C-alpha cells in the first residue's frame, strides 16, 4: 500500500511541481519538533497510556511520524471504528467517540479531501450511530458519517485466505486512498478477543458465513485482504467480560491506553497482552501470524512506549 501511495504522491508531485514532497518534508519536521527525544516514523508500534483519548492520540501519532505520513493532500480517508451497539460510551462496546473525532481532525489537518466514518452495525444502525456518541463527534470534527446498513453498498472481492476466498466489502473501503482501522479492545464471546482484525468484520456484509465456516480462520484470512494503513486500538475503557455487547459498566476497566501500529497482527498481540490474555490462546492472532499477515513476535519490532 505504501508503494501505491508513494507512486500516487510521485505522480501528483510531477504535476504539482514537487508540492507534495515539500509538504511531506514539512510533516516530518513538524513531527520531529513534537517529540524531539525519539526519531518519529521509525516505530512499528507506539503504545500510550495515562491520558485522555485525544491527547494520547496526539502523542502517539506524532511518534508514528505524524498523520501526514499516512494521509496526503486531497486523499479520501475512511475511518472504521467499532459502532456495533446501541449503548453509550461508558459501556465501552463501541470505540471512544473522542478518539474517533481526534483521528478525523488529524486526517483533515493533514489535507484529506474527505474523512468518512461508517460501520456495519449489529444493533439498529441509526440508534448505534447516535447513542455511541460517534455520529455527533465525527460531524463536529468535520467528518462524514456514511451508512453501512444496505447490501447494495457491498461489492464482491476475492480474499487470499485459506477458508475465506471471496466476500463482499463496502465500496467506501474499496474506493478509499487511506484506511484507518479504529477498534475498541474488548472481550468477545465468539472470537475470544475483539481487536483490530475482528473489527474488520464491520466492513463486510455477510458475517454469518464466517460464523458458519470457522470463524477464527475467516478473521485471520480477511486480514490479508486489505491491511489497514493504520490501526489505532482504543483501550481507554476496556470491556473485560460479557463482550462484545456487555451488560453493564461493571464489565469495564478504565485502562487509559492506546496502541497504534501499521502491523495489524502486532497491534492485536500488544492489545491482547494489555488485556491480560496470552496471544497464543487467541486463535485468529496465532493463525494470522502463521500466515505471515503480520507478526506476533513483539521482540522483532520497534516499539515506542509513552506515558502521558
Amino acid at each position, binding site marked *: 500500500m505504501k508503494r501505491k501511495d508513494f507512486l500516487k504522491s510521485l505522480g501528483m508531485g510531477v504535476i504539482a511541481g514537487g508540492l507534495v514532497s515539500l509538504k511531506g518534508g514539512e510533516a516530518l519536521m513538524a513531527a520531529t519538533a513534537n517529540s524531539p527525544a525519539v526519531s518519529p516514523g521509525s516505530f512499528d508500534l507506539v503504545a500510550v497510556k495515562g491520558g485522555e483519548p485525544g491527547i494520547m492520540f496526539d502523542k502517539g501519532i506524532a511518534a508514528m511520524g505524524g498523520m501526514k505520513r499516512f494521509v496526503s493532500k486531497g486523499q479520501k480517508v475512511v475511518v472504521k471504528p467499532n459502532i456495533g451497539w446501541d449503548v453509550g460510551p461508558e459501556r465501552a462496546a463501541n470505540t471512544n467517540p473522542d478518539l474517533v473525532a481526534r483521528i478525523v481532525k488529524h486526517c483533515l489537518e493533514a489535507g484529506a479531501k474527505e474523512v468518512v466514518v461508517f460501520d456495519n452495525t449489529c444493533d439498529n444502525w441509526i440508534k448505534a450511530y447516535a447513542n455511541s456518541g460517534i455520529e455527533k463527534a465525527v460531524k463536529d470534527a468535520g467528518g462524514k458519517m456514511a451508512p453501512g446498513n444496505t447490501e447494495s453498498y457491498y461489492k464482491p472481492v476475492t480474499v487470499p485466505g485459506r477458508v475465506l476466498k471471496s466476500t463482499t466489502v463496502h465500496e467506501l473501503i474499496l474506493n478509499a486512498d487511506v484506511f484507518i482501522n479504529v477498534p475498541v479492545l474488548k472481550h468477545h*464471546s465468539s472470537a475470544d478477543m475483539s481487536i483490530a482484525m475482528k473489527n474488520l468484520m464491520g466492513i463486510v456484509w455477510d458475517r454469518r458465513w464466517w460464523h458458519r465456516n470457522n470463524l477464527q480462520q475467516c478473521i485471520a484470512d480477511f486480514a490479508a485482504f486489505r491491511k489497514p494503513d493504520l490501526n489505532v486500538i482504543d483501550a481507554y475503557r476496556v470491556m473485560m467480560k460479557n463482550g462484545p455487547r456487555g451488560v453493564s459498566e461493571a464489565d469495564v476497566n478504565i485502562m487509559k491506553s492506546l496502541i497504534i501500529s501499521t502491523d495489524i497482527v502486532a497491534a492485536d498481540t500488544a492489545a491482547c497482552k494489555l488485556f491480560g490474555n496470552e496471544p497464543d490462546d487467541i486463535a485468529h492472532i496465532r493463525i494470522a501470524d502463521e500466515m505471515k499477515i503480520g507478526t506476533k513476535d513483539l521482540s522483532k519490532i520497534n516499539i515506542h512506549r509513552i506515558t502521558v
Partner: protein
Amino acid sequence: MPNHLLRRLRFWFSLLIVVLLTLPFIDFTGIIPPEYIRAINWTQFIPSILKFFEIPNLLGTGFLLVIILSLLFGRVYCSWLCPFGWLQDLFSGIGRLTSKKRRFYKYLPPLNYLRYGLLILVGALAFFRINTGLIFTDPFSIYGRIANHLLMPLVLGINNLVSNLLGNSGFYGLKPYPYQGFDIFAVAIGVFYLIIIAYISFTKGRLYCTAWCPVGTLLGLFSRFSLFKIYLDESRCNQCGLCATSCKAGCIDSKNTNVEFDRCVGCFNCLTVCRDNGVKYGIPPKKTKSNPSSIPDTRRREILLSILAIGIVQKVFGKDPIKVQKAFIEAVSESAVSPPGAINNERFTSVCTACHACLSACPTRVLQPAFLQHGIKGMLQPFMDYHNNFCNYECTKCMEVCPTGALIFLTPENKKRTQLGKAKFIEKNCVVYTDETACGACSEHCPSKAVDMVFYKPGLTIPEVTEDICVGCGACEYACPTLPYKAIYVEANAIHQVAKEPKGSDKSKEEVPEEFPF
C-alpha cells in the same frame, strides 16, 4: 358559513388530515415522534374506542368527539377524518373526471340487511373479544395497512434510488434504508382492498361506507338524531334530481324529496349544485309529509342471524392458535411471540385491529403481520418475527404509538425486564457441535448475557442459556448462522413474564497499567 366554503373546507381539511395520518405509516426513518403519532391517531374512532375500554385515559376519548360531532353535524367523520374515506374520494374523483356521464351518481336504496347485519356481527365479535371483524372492516386499520405495505415501499424505493445515485458519486447525505418488512400476505391483503375499493368508489362513490363499513353504519345511527341535517326544501325542490347526481353516498331520494341522512357521509357536495337553492344544511323544519321509513323492520331477524353467526365463528375461530412449527422436529413454540406491552397473547389479540401503526414505527421491523401465527382470529396482527430482525433492547416505540391499547406502555426499565419468551438452545444444530469451530453469534448479540459461552472443549466454547434473565428479544435467534435451521430460538411466553435483572452495576474500575506488558 356559505355552502361552497363548507365544501372547500372539507376538501382541504380531509387532505390535511390524511397527510398527517399517513406520515407515520410511511416514515421508514423513525424520525416522527411517538407523541405526534398518538395525537393524530386520537381522531380515529375504532382505535380510540378500544383504547378507552382497555386503558381508560384521555388518549381514548377521541371516539367521544366523533360521536358528539355525529350528533351535531351528521357522519362528518366519514368525509373529514376517515383516511379510507378520503382514499375512496380520490378514486371516485378520478372516476367522475374521466367519465362521460353528466349524471354520475344516482340514488341507491339502502342495503340495510347487509349493513346492520355486519354492524351487529362485528360489534358482537368485538364484544366477545374477537377482533377478526374489526381487523378486516375498521377503515383506519385498512388504510394503515395499505399505507404501510404499499405506499411506504414506494416512498422507500424512491429514496433508495435517489440515494444510491447520489451515494455512488460519494455523497451520503440521503441514506438508503433496506426494505426489511416485506410480507407477501400483508401486501396481498393491501392490494386486495385497494382493488376492491378502487372499483367500488370508481363507479359507485361511497357505497362501501354506506353498505359495508360498520363504523359508518354506527355513526349513521347517531346522525339520524343529529341537530344539523341536510334536507331538501320542499317549497323550492322540483325533484329534478340534480343533487342526487352529486351524492357519493347515493342517499338523496329526490323523487320523495328526502335525504336519508343516516347514510350521508358529510361531504357537502350537494349543497352547491341545486339551481333553486333547495338543498339546505341546518336544523330541518318539521316534516309536513309523512316520511316513508327507509329502514325496514328486519332487526329481529338480523339479531338472531348474527347470534347464530357469532356462535359459528366462535366455534371455528375461538380455538387455540395454530402451533408454529419452529423448524425443528423437537422445537415447537406453543404460540407466537407477541410484542412487548401485549401482556398476554389472549388480551393482545382481542384488542389489536392490525392497523400496523406499530409495524410502521418499529425501527428494526422485527414486528411482522401474522398469517396464522396468532391463529385465524389474529390474522394480520403483529408478532415478533425473529427471522426478520430482533427487538432493540432499549426501544419502546411500538407501545408508544399503539392507538388501540393492545400494547400497553411499559417504561424502558420495565420493558427491559419483560420476558416475551425464553431462548432455547438446540445443541445438535450448533456450529460448535457440528463443525467444532468457534461461533457464539447468539451470545454476542444477547443484551443480558442470558446466552453465554461456556467451556466445551479446549479452545472451544458453546452457548448456554440462563432462562430467568432472558427477555426473549430474539437477538440470538436472528444472529444464529446455522442453516437451514437455527440452533437457538425463542419459545414464546403466551403470558409475558418478568425476567430477573442481569448481574451488573454502573461502576467501572480504574486500572491504568503501571508498565506495558510488552
